[in-house]
């Protein structure tokens, strides 16, 4: 019998939340809308799935209000796979987040892909036992979300387009912001915190360590193994693929190829091998031709 007392044991700590994000490095998290897709994703080597009723491309096409998914469907996916299951709540909708926590989802994505419930405030994520992932376009936004309790950051990109340009922009911006902050003197950091709208203590940590205090993943427009490799080489520590897999011609093959591409993202020969004969990619939307009102990355602040 161990001598450890009950009081020495703490459940759902910051360390266990960020710790799970650490275990998800170097892999792919895939959007799935049913049990069948979840199994295809797991068989392909997905390290986690995002359970939702419609992939972002369909949310875009259907219009209307996009909300948290049916608990029944999330639960069915949880039962069908052994890998972690994530689910999305609307920005600021802490009641949806409470429901997802009660369901025992492994990560809650407070996501701009759904219609925001609060145009002023995000969820106070420290209150939850479930870890949260949030989207960000720059360092200030990333640190605001971490300040509220996010245990993982992902680029917002432009979900449901299959166009990687916004994810690239956001990853380059975050990495560039971090480099700039590292080059600043201590006396410049308070002004920088004010300009970025970032919590000062977190900015100080970034200036010292040269990295975000939580893992930094990429999402929003990744559709091919080459896209995944590009974002990994730009500094992403893992990737989310939303519509890119199940809106393509051969989801099982493409899913596996993207998993292999992330594991060997620096190996161009491997990328040649896995990029062959994947069938039709998702058709996609060119972000530069989109009406600004159709873009969702601007949701949240």
């Amino acid at each position: 019998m161990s001598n450890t007392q009950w009081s020495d044991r703490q459940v759902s700590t910051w360390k266990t939340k960020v710790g799970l994000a650490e275990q998800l490095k170097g892999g792919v998290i895939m959007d799935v809308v049913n049990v069948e897709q979840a199994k295809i994703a797991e068989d392909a080597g997905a390290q986690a799935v995002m359970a939702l009723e419609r992939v972002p491309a369909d949310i875009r096409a259907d219009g209307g209000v996009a909300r948290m998914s049916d608990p029944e469907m999330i639960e069915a996916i949880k039962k069908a796979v052994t890998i972690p299951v994530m689910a999305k709540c609307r920005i600021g909708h802490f009641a949806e987040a409470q429901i997802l926590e009660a369901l025992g989802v492994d990560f809650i994505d407070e996501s701009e892909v759904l219609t925001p419930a609060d145009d002023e405030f995000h969820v106070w994520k420290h209150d939850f036992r479930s870890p949260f992932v949030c989207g960000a376009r720059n360092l200030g936004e990333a640190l605001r979300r971490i300040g509220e309790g996010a245990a993982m950051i992902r680029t917002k990109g432009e979900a449901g387009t299959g166009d990687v340009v916004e994810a690239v922009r956001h990853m380059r911006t975050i990495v560039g912001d971090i480099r700039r902050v590292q080059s600043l003197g201590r006396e410049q950091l308070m002004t920088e915190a004010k300009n970025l709208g970032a919590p000062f203590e977190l900015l100080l940590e970034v200036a010292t360590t040269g990295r975000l205090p939580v893992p930094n993943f990429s999402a929003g427009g990744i559709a091919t193994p080459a896209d995944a490799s590009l974002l990994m080489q730009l500094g992403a520590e893992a990737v989310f693929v939303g519509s890119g897999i199940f809106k393509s011609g051969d989801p099982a093959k493409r899913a596996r190829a993207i998993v292999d591409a992330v594991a060997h993202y620096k190996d161009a020969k491997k990328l040649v091998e896995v990029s062959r004969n994947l069938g039709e990619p998702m058709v996609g939307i060119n972000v530069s031709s989109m009406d600004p009102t159709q873009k969702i990355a601007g949701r949240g602040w």
Partner: protein
Amino acid sequence: MKNIGVLSLQGGFEKHLGMVARCGARGVEIRYSRELHEVDGLILPGGESTTIGKLLDRNGFIPEIQKLLSKNFPVFGTCAGTILLADTIEGSTQVKIGGLPITIERNAYGSQVDSFESLLEIELSNPITFPGVFIRAPRITFLGKGVETLSVLDDDPVFIRYNSIIAATFHPELTTNLAIHDYFIRNIV
């Protein structure tokens, strides 16, 4: 200087590489089986055991690691790494390496919201207190012959040794305590 390989296909490899460097050894990212022959010991990190298992299989690692284990090559498994080394995974037919005569149950403490931290008493060269971080942790439900228990939590073994293998169900790489990595590098490798 000892070269310590850290399997870097998926999972918590980066923190392990940091721990190895802080112990004064050279950490080597292992992404191809041929790289196994350049290191003196191997760390199998946490992560998703199904994902890592598939990537090991697709990249020809499994027979190579099995061959090394049969020659008492030093291996340190944490969480998913321990699952992959287990001879039996309860209720699962997933790809694994095997070689460690134990039975293990995946996600035995519940889902992520049940992940926890707990202090552990560990028998290394001297007994130490160690901060155990358990994340979607597995539980060792059966120990085969020759497996030595180095730490328990609620009567369940959480840290074990078998020949040249040490294996934990928790995540020493998420702490700042180097004792376990140091023990592996100095006493096993």
